[in-house]
């Protein structure tokens, strides 16, 4: 008997016992759904937690400072930089050419003087409230801070997490960080209230005789984003930051240094390793080039270990469900063998070998497992997506960036193959029992 003949026979038999087949498939589907949903949710949670650890951006990201490495800090996640060291285009090219580098993004942080923003109406606060510390009002006095300029079109790969609005796309636009909101006493979940507000800030520059002047700008706040690319409450385009840098440095290195800016093309680089497990290697290579680096590799490793345990526990629950479903398959097949003793005898009487009968029952088990697995995987992905939607709704209400469901093809494929294999395994004993039934069953009465 060929495989095709056996498949045809099994298909007909499953249709004949449609009710029982459907129940058995449903048991496998539910178990596979549970496994898929739990693992997907666990993996999503892992991605999310790791993203939080790294404040967005790539997990394999390394921050390079415009400073020489401090030998005592090399292995630390948040290494304190050594003495300042200019980071120019040639340094950028050298880093970019290192092995295991996926991409390199320049960062320019420049000092700014921020004027008190205008009143911002915050829902739920008195409209006529005055004075510092009252929600809905800006600081009374100008203050010094920094603007972090990045390639905003590559923000998804940088340690930047958008919380509201969007990132700036021109020199007339700017984004602010949650620290800026704190300064204005605006709750993070009401971050959207600052969108559209015009902010006034300037790049300071020293002149002769100790005087200073600023280049004043009036960009519109278009977004709120958490960022770890540099230090500063304002986020702008790389071009805006470079304009500010050139203006400040034109006043002389000593003057720029007095405002906190060293003479360097870039104040930092964000380097992404091509693999998470190559972060340490790449860090060492960049250190060898002569720059201070930091990466949350040890923190990520610790979190990964804890999350792996969670994932194993959740997968274990799903697997137990699959094993229970497999026992259901075995039970259904045992019942089928009991009911079909005469039919098996007839098959043998007309020439079926033991292995033909074994094949028929194994295919039946595998088919139930595979169909249940496919349905279960679809169901599990849908459940995970629904949970994701509910979680995102909650996160949005809390002013936190949404999570992206980590539906892994490996998990989906693994669940289908695993369900089929487990079902096949469960079907082995009843199939072997069917194969061993004597041909004489064909002529037994009853």
């Amino acid at each position, binding site marked *: *008997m*060929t495989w095709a*003949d056996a498949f045809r*026979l099994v298909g*007909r*038999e499953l*249709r*004949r016992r449609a009710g029982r087949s459907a129940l058995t498939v449903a048991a496998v589907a539910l178990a596979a759904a549970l496994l898929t949903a739990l693992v997907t949710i666990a993996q999503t949670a892992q991605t999310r937690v790791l993203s939080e650890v790294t404040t967005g951006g790539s997990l394999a990201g390394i921050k390079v400072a415009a400073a020489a490495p401090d030998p005592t800090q090399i292995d630390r996640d948040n290494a304190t930089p050594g003495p300042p060291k200019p980071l120019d285009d040639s340094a950028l090219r050298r880093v970019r050419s290192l092995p295991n580098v996926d991409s390199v993004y320049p960062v320019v942080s420049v000092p700014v003087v921020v004027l008190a923003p205008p009143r911002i109406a915050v829902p739920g606060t008195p409209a006529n409230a005055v004075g510092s510390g009252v929600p809905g009002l800006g600081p009374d006095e100008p203050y010094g801070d920094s603007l972090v300029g990045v390639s905003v079109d590559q923000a998804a790969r940088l340690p930047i997490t958008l919380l509201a609005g969007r990132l700036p796309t021109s020199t007339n636009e700017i984004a602010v960080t949650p620290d800026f909101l704190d300064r204005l006493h605006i709750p993070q979940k009401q971050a959207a209230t600052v969108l559209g507000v015009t902010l006034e800030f300037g790049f300071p520059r020293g002149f002769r005789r100790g005087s200073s002047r600023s280049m004043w700008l009036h960009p519109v706040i278009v977004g709120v984003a958490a960022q770890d690319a540099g230090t500063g409450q304002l986020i702008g385009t790389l071009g805006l930051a470079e304009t500010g840098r050139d203006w400040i440095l034109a006043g002389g290195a000593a003057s720029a240094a007095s405002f906190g800016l060293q003479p360097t093309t870039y104040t930092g680089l964000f380097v992404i390793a091509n693999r998470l497990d190559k972060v340490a290697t790449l860090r060492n290579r960049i250190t060898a080039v002569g720059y201070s680096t930091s990466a949350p590799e040890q923190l990520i490793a610790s979190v990964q270990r804890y999350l792996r345990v969670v994932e194993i526990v959740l997968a274990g629950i799903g697997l137990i469900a699959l094993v229970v479903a497999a026992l259901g398959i075995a039970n259904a097949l045992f019942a089928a063998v009991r009911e079909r003793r*005469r*039919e098996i*005898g*007839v*098959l*043998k*009487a*007309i*020439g*079926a*070998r*033991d292995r*033909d009968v074994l094949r028929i029952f194994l295919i039946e088990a595998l088919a139930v497992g595979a169909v249940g697995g496919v349905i279960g995987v679809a169901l599990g992905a849908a459940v995970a997506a629904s949970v994701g939607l509910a979680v995102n709704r909650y996160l949005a209400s809390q002013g936190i960036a949404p999570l992206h469901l980590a539906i892994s093809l490996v998990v989906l494929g693994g669940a289908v193959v695993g369900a089929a294999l487990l079902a096949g395994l469960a079907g082995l004993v009843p199939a072997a029992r069917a194969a061993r039934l*004597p*041909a*004489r069953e*064909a*002529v037994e009465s009853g």
Partner: protein
Amino acid sequence: MGHGEEVSPSLLVRDLRHRYRTPRGELVVLDGVSFDVPAGGYVALTGPSGAGKTTLLSLLGGLERVQSGHVEVEGTDLAGVSATELARFRSQTVGFVFQHFGLLQTLTAAENVELALALAGVGLKTRRAASRDLLGSVGLAGRLEHLPHQLSGGERQRVAIARALANSPRLVLADEPTGNLDEESAANVITLLESLPATRGVTLVVVTHNHAVADRAATRLALRAGRLEGLLTPPRSYL
């Protein structure tokens, strides 16, 4: 074939003994049965319930292993064959017709016939054509795509006969083939079966309680308590 002519028997049974283990001890089912049947012969196997008819049929058809004695079918000693060879023997040398028809309920009449051919390794196109021919030869050309439950008892048994003939067997074993049929259908089925030795040259062994059927057989073996009680047509000497 005339008397005195030496012909290889289709069935050669010598001192066949068979017993089953039961919770109440051993049950002797066949106790020293010996007989020969010539090729193309027609044998009726009769006897009361529990006489050992079905066991004898099972042993002749390779459904069960020979415990003691000698059973040779179409030159094959059934005592010394492997399980795989026995399966091939059942597929290619023997055709079974059961009282309960033994049709797979999920397969059409044509597919039931094809199944026997598929188990013998016959290709799809060949077996489609063969099943059509066979069902046509038993008068079921218009019932090819009918499922067993859509057929009458007589039609089902004719499908079973077509399936039994699918691999051109040398021996057809029928276990009370008319037991579940009305009189008219039974007569048609018996007529069809009885025509097989002449039309196809097969040896036919029919287990029956029907005296009229048994009387028409060339040889009538009467079993009682595992022993051959009567042999109405004396066996000829073949060896």
